[in-house]
């Protein structure tokens, strides 16, 4: 079993390790650090100690995987009805950068029905190779068949890195694939860097609703897998003259599936597209009445944006759950986020604080939302919203 102890002769009681511990499991008593019982042996404190006073030993895993036989960066070319998800294109942008550092190819895995054209789009956006499995049974995302085929491909071609979008499908497929392969997976990454010498992917992700960032590695298992938040990585400008290989691998298409997708329903939420919207106008309790969401919708329409909502309004039944932004709703990062009559509870901030520009409109000048706002207006949202709609309408023609 792993162990951790403080080397008392080296410890100076500086308390730096207290801040390095995500679990509040270190105390300093009599000028010496002490590891408390709630330590989870995560090892995060080791790098925080400037005096090498933390002795942390992790047992070597038995029979490590032959890491050197794994080469290349893969991304999941998620698509719906033949259109690639934006996040898949973003992954290609990120994947290219990582692959160039590792001097390997970027390949996309594309599963679907009649999606040959999609393969070309993926190449234009940076894929060197596309592993294309085209079959009528793969028309809709299916956890069982997609996992089965993805695992077959990984076992056959052995990529060192596999990236998937942190979308509904990616967050279901990736853990199932990683679990079958017994490899590591880091969720919802917002930063990816390479330690070139060790060929290790440094995966940075938010935890505790964005209040803490953690950098995570998977040193002894392959592939190194991450899901990546939409709208964080940059897609490349498409270059339709780029060439790449479309490989149709010989895989076994699973039959007699247990999981059957009977129907795929697009609801009114189609217009919401919160996770991929450039502009989001969100309404909160400050609207005062459910019918005032119309004001939010009008501004969103003029700007070509989506409508979001705070949890309070969803819980009160003013608007559908699919609009909810925040910890128990959707995590968004648009270019512009309007928080209209939203006070900015920590759970709401967790879902939108990485937006590029945040505009807060609230009656209460002390509302926490103003602390994350790029621009703030203290005022009555019912009065300001129509004025904004009018202004933008006039200026945008």
């Amino acid at each position, binding site marked *: *079993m*792993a162990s951790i102890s403080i080397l008392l002769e080296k410890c100076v009681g500086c308390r730096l390790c207290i801040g390095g511990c*995500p679990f509040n499991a270190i105390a300093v008593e009599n000028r010496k650090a002490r590891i408390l*019982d*709630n330590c989870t042996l995560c*090892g995060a404190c080791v*790098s925080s100690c400037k005096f090498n006073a933390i002795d942390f030993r*992790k*047992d070597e*895993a*038995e029979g490590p995987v032959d890491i050197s036989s794994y080469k290349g960066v893969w991304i999941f070319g998620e698509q719906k009805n033949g259109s690639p998800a934006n996040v898949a294109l973003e992954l290609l942008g990120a994947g290219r950068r990582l692959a160039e550092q590792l001097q390997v190819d970027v390949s996309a895995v594309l599963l679907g029905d009649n999606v040959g054209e999609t393969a070309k789009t993926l190449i234009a956006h940076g894929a060197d190779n596309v592993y294309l499995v085209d079959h009528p049974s793969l028309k809709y995302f299916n*956890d*069982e068949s997609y996992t089965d085929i993805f695992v077959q491909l990984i076992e056959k071609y052995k990529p060192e890195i596999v990236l998937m979008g942190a979308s509904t*499908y990616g*967050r*279901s497929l990736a*853990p*199932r694939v*990683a*679990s079958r392969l*017994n*490899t*590591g*997976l880091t*969720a919802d990454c917002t930063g990816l860097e390479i330690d070139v010498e060790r060929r290790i992917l440094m995966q940075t992700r938010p*935890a*505790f*609703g964005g209040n803490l960032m*953690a950098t*995570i*590695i*998977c*040193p002894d298992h392959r592939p190194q897998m991450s899901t990546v938040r939409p709208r964080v990585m940059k897609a490349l400008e498409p270059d339709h003259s780029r060439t790449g290989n479309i490989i149709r691998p010989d895989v076994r298409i699973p039959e007699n599936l*247990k*999981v*059957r997708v*009977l129907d795929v*329903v*697009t*609801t009114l*939420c*189609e217009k919401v597209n919160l996770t*991929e*919207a450039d502009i989001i106008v969100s309404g909160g309790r400050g609207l005062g009445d459910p019918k005032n969401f119309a004001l939010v919708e009008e501004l969103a329409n*003029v700007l*070509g944006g989506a409508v979001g909502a705070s949890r309070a309004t969803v819980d009160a039944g003013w608007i559908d*759950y*699919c609009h909810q932004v925040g910890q128990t709703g959707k995590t968004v990062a648009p270019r512009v986020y309007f928080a209209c009559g939203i006070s900015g*509870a920590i*759970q709401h901030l967790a879902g939108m604080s990485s937006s590029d*520009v*945040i505009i807060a409109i609230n009656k209460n000048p002390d509302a926490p939302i103003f602390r994350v*706002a*790029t*621009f*703030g207006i203290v005022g009555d949202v019912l009065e*300001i919203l129509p004025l*904004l709609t009018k*202004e933008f309408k006039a*200026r945008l023609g």
Partner: protein
Amino acid sequence: MNVIVCVKQVPGTNEVKINKETNTIIREGVEAIINPFDAYAIEEGLRIKEKTGGKVTVISMGIPTVAGLLKDTIALGADEAVLLSDRAFAGADTLATSYVLSMSIKKIGSYDLVICGKQATDGDTAQVGPSLAEKLGIPHTTYVRKIEEIREGYIRCQRMTDDGYEVIEMPLPALITVVKEINEPRLPSLKGMMRAKKAVIPVWTAEDIGADKNKCGLKGSPTQVIKTFVPVHDVKSEMLEGTPEQQASALAEKLLSMRFTTCK
């Protein structure tokens, strides 16, 4: 129908505050709660039991104090709750957690459905559900917002997607993870609280569930946290003053000059 619900103890996130001097999360005095998404999982388990009979068993891997929270699930109506606690489980990532949960479920034996919350509010990974289903060798569906039908050996449910929902059917046993939309959790009943008071929460160790310690805890975790830090939000806020007309006009001016025009 026998349902197993997996829950996790998380800090009550309302209280998450940053110590500005040390730049760390203040955890003192932060109460531990059952992960909010898991409350919907428990509720759905109870509703299935009320409709079809059988029982609801709640399991959680965690430190010994989690037993107190498990008692709360008895108060809500769970028939049994088991705590998986062992020093060997410490430092587990989602893979090692799934392994331990799977071994305990195998020990419990007969079950029809496993329900997990969509994700936990501390790690936010959403990985344990699908990973656990794989370890159990059963099908899974994530983000379930409604169970349309459940009967012996069969479930049909709705999975919430980014632009709507899907209707998915699976044979049982299966695993689902649930979103908030699925139900409105109940409060504990007086009778339940009396039962909870008397309830003894069994604690199972690695040995009890026949787990291979090499697959548990830190040792069984392929991922390692190498650094944590508090993100710097370098926000320069600008308050727009004047009459509402002036404020609106100033804002439009500023946004358009930043070239944030429409995405039409």
